[in-house]
């Protein structure tokens, strides 16, 4: 049970470029926060600074009332799950999970009990005597989880823990981690570059780019109300459509970019975007993604619920509602949409 407060964290590895630039985040008690961003955006560095594996150049990290600056990693009461699991190859599953407790002078019987409980929870009871080499990817992942769990830490840190798993296992583990975290109520920070992971798991997500926080919000809020052009483009699959403001009359003069989600483009509406020709259709069953271009050569993606009857080469007029348009200025910041 803990609240994590990062205030004004900066870190640079080479002079002149900031890996993490003035980041301030507050993670509430029991909250599941996802740090999302492209590779090299500083999200892993930020996580490693919380763990104490990197030291920030400036700024402060606090867990409840305790300031963590200068506290060695093992004394922070923080557990981390690594991307490649980082299991101790020479120890059994039991040994891996018991290691941290042994070093904290927990009585033997208590260690045994806690490891067995965690193993039960993670369905690892039959594998306690095995070495990590003898386990599958998903099992290793669960051992890494177990190793963090038995410590009963104040905060969980996840560094892309699912990226080494295959797609179906990833979906299962996504669900399991989320259920487990909710049941135990341990404050968690989860780093990922996968927006599906971030959107489905997180209570709130932090979108980062080039060391800076672009936006903090609930998944839906970030999706519906991107505060910057980067967030608009990074969140959402298929990617958001970027339009030339010249296509739409009546926009404010400082608007240099207009974005609209693929599902907001329709065959009727207030704003006429022009004639659209279909280049490619992806039928996904529950939805259909249509790729094509406007008569001026401007590429667009349209998402339609269910199955539809059009075919490649068909043309039709594309419309949208004015309130669905997202306007950005030259710096990429969101502008108020006067129509909404």
């Amino acid at each position, binding site marked *: 049970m803990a609240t994590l407060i990062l205030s004004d964290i900066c870190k640079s590895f080479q002079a002149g470029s900031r890996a993490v630039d003035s980041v301030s985040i507050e993670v509430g008690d029991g909250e599941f926060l996802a740090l999302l961003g492209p590779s090299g955006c500083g999200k892993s560095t930020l996580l490693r600074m919380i763990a104490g594996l990197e030291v920030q150049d400036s700024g402060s990290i606090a867990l409840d009332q305790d300031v963590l600056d200068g506290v060695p990693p093992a004394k922070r009461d923080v557990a981390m799950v690594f991307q490649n699991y980082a*299991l101790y*190859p*020479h120890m059994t599953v039991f040994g891996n999970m018991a290691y941290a407790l042994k070093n904290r002078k927990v009585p033997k019987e208590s260690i045994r009990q806690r490891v067995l409980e965690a193993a039960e929870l993670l369905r690892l009871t039959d594998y306690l005597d095995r070495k990590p080499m003898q386990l599958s990817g998903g099992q290793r992942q669960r051992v890494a989880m177990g190793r963090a769990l038995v*410590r009963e830490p104040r905060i969980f840190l996840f560094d892309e823990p699912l990226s080494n798993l295959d797609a179906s296992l990833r979906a299962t583990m996504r669900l399991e981690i989320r259920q487990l975290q909710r049941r135990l109520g341990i404050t968690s920070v989860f780093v990922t570059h996968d927006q599906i992971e971030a959107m489905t798991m997180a209570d709130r997500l932090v979108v980062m780019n080039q060391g800076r926080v672009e936006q903090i919000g609930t998944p839906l809020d970030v999706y519906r109300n991107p505060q910057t052009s980067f967030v608009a483009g990074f969140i959402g699959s298929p990617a958001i459509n970027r339009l030339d403001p010249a296509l739409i009359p009546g926009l404010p003069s400082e608007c240099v970019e207009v974005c609209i989600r693929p599902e907001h483009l329709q065959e009727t509406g207030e704003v006429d975007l022009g004639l659209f020709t279909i280049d490619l259709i992806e039928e996904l069953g529950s939805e259909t993604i249509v790729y094509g271009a406007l008569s001026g050569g401007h590429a667009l993606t349209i998402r339609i619920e269910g199955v539809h009857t059009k075919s490649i080469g068909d043309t039709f007029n594309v419309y949208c509602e004015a309130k669905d348009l997202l306007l950005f200025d030259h710096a990429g910041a969101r502008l108020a949409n006067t129509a909404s």
Partner: protein
Amino acid sequence: MKRVHFGHSPIPYVFVLPQMLIIGVFFLWPSFEAFRLSFFLEDPWGLSNQFVWFDNYWDVISDENYRAVFFSTVIFSAVVALLSIILALLFAVKVDGLLRLSSTYRPFLTWSYAIAPAVAGLIARFLYSPQIGPLYDFLNQFSTDTWFEPRLDAMDAWLVLASGSIWKQISVNFVFLVAGLQAIPRNVLEASLLDNPNGFRRFWSITLPLLAPTLFFLLVINISYAVFETFGVIDTVYPFGPPSGAQTLVYKVYVDGFKGADLGGSSAQSVILMVIVLLLTVVQFRYIEKRVHYT
């Protein structure tokens, strides 16, 4: 299931031929010769010989001097092998932290690898020389009643030979240990950083077990170095032989065979030495290797 068969080509044999020739000429043939000679008594001029069954072996085993050299060799080899591994490990651990930050140092640190035992011996000879040796002067500063005199005193000679041999071998061990340390996954060490607040216990419980394959390999080659290759150091520091009591078995083989012209007895010693090393290697692989975890 149909298997794929490759036609047998003579080319692979041609490729391994040079190596086989080297092994044959420099190892198998001399070994066989030593084995054969150990059953003969040869006259000092090498003109005639006489088959004497196991007499040479009985002579060696019942020789009090041989037993003394045997025990001093055991101690010498154990000290040289262990100290050169432990000291190299100490240096490697210290350097490992730096290397993770920078790779510029790496080539410089491996230079000393190229020193031959004979060169190490020469350097030791200079360092401990009564005329110009700084270590000779340094050690004599501390002696009150007894003088440090490696040319006469067996114990002092032992110290010179052991330190020279260790000094030479540290660089070899160091290179392997640094490589071994660098091969330990970074994330595993980081995980232990979160799990264990005590740096020494972290090293003992995580780093050392993960380094075990390298350490085991080094143990095997260091023991064979300490037993055999230190001959180069001994012969360069003491061209006319060390004070008696600072000999090793290999040096005694050489002295008895080539200077004492007792080819049969020297060959018997060689065969005994071969058997000892063979047993030692078997013991290492059977009992120590079991505890090594290969990833």
